[in-house]
């Protein structure tokens, strides 16, 4: 059970595939139009329940509770040899030009 007031993320299907605009490619048309919003849980609930949140600006959104205490986990990615190589090549070129 996730306690009231916890920072959570909900998911809401705004448009089912059949409700989507016609002007989109077929691969987009066959999936629903979905939103995620984060906020403070209004009443205690379990993951997967229908739950209401209060967003940072005080608005209420109701949807499926999908995550408790969500955070952003993006980073600087995995090692990319090509970037290291470019950096070394550029520095070498400049050294030669400055000789």
């Amino acid at each position: 059970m996730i306690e009231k007031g916890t920072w959570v993320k909900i998911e809401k299907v705004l448009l089912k595939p059949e409700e989507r605009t016609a002007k989109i490619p077929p691969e987009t048309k066959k999936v629903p139009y979905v939103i995620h919003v984060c906020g403070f849980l209004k009443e205690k609930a379990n993951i997967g329940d229908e739950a209401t949140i209060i967003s940072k600006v005080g608005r209420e959104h109701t949807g499926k509770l999908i995550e408790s205490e969500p955070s952003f986990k993006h980073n600087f990615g995995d090692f990319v040899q090509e970037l290291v190589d470019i950096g070394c090549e550029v520095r070498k070129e400049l050294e030669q030009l400055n000789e």
Partner: protein
Amino acid sequence: MDKSYNAVMGRKNEIMKKALGIDYTKYKITDIAFDYEMMMDDVGYSIKEIFDIQSSSKVGNTPLYFLPNITKLVRKYAPKGKGAKIYLKDEAANASGSFKARRASLSIYEAKKRGYKGVIASTSGNYGAAVASQAAMRGLKCIIVQEVFDSRFVGQPEIIEKARACEALGAEVIMSSVGPELFYSFLSALEDTGYFNASLYTPFSIAGIETLGWEVMHQIRAIEGRDPDYIMITHAGGGNLTGTARGVLKYKMENKPLNYTEFVGCSVDLSGLHMASDIDFNKKSFTTGHTGFGIPFAEWPDRADTPRNAARSLRYMDRYLTVTQGEVFYATELLAASEGIERGPAGNTSLAGAINLAMTLDQDAIIVVQETEYTGAGKHPQAQLSFARQNGIEILRGHPEKSINGKNIVLPYNIGDFQYKEQDLAKLKISYLENLISNYPNIKLQDEDIEFLSNDLNEDPKWIRDNLFSILSKKGK
């Protein structure tokens, strides 16, 4: 109230009117023509006043740097006697880390003055963070509507970072899956809250960028004693080019022009990738500054989320170049390795174009690259290239002409490999006229329309008449 898609879209005009506080009918001349300059004048602030508003909100007065090492490298690869000097305007120094702070500053100031309790913007770019940042400092509530993930709930690192920044700055972020229905979410939020529509395309947004052009002129004259020959402007929705050019022209009007300055738009070439495709969404490494916005918005500016778009790039654009994703990543690494400044990749689009253009110009020519953006987790070549690799995109070294969007990213061996593509502006202008005819199939064009089109496309009335005639003849009208 009926909040279904069709119902909300059907109330678009009334929602917009309330959320902008601008009565666009005032500027209407005919169904096609409107008084663009009157609309811009109604912003009601002089450049001096805009500078004051921006300096009170941590925006503007960013440094202009000469790039000696990149200029040196350009001269190594350029034909003898060629290799223009390259300057860089470090817009990452603005409050939210990009030039978008200029666009947001005036809108949010105005929203506050008009008594709105909050602001809403729909954006896939740095603009979200800019609006959230300005709203935070002026005590307004902020909602950002942003396309973030595909149907697997995967988003590329740059866009995740943009969502994070908005949230960190206090916004409610509506993160959506792929699709143009983003506009529906946006309208619906405007209707529910009564907040101000801090669109990228209002006159306030464009007037806010004019200071950038003005600053470039002021700074370059202080260093070089003359005007830049070229200003390279990353081009997407058209606001950056329109606002910068207007600022430059205002400066020249007030201080007498010293020499001609060309406005060169530059976008990342993403041709072949569909912007509304759930599959293509994560096959692109750039979420803004690309041809997926640059071309459609130039060809038909009024596709924007305002009744009339204040960003009208073809009024000012002298040339339009496209560069590859690989060239922009190379330029980003080059900037860090040679000039000692790490900046975000998307903002370096125009730098990649400038490096290449500089090789074709005499050594006394001056190019100003007019923006940079902040870098960090997600907004970084390593994050983006490794994400691309995980999504089946091949990363290789080679000549940019080997690039195939959605299949590979080709990092050049050196800047001698850079090869921008010159886009045919006349073709873009003709597409604009074709869009006009499709949008108004039964229109009888009046003299006012021709005059408007002549200004909007920066072509003489005869060119407009001849091309309209040829389009209509092809359609058998």
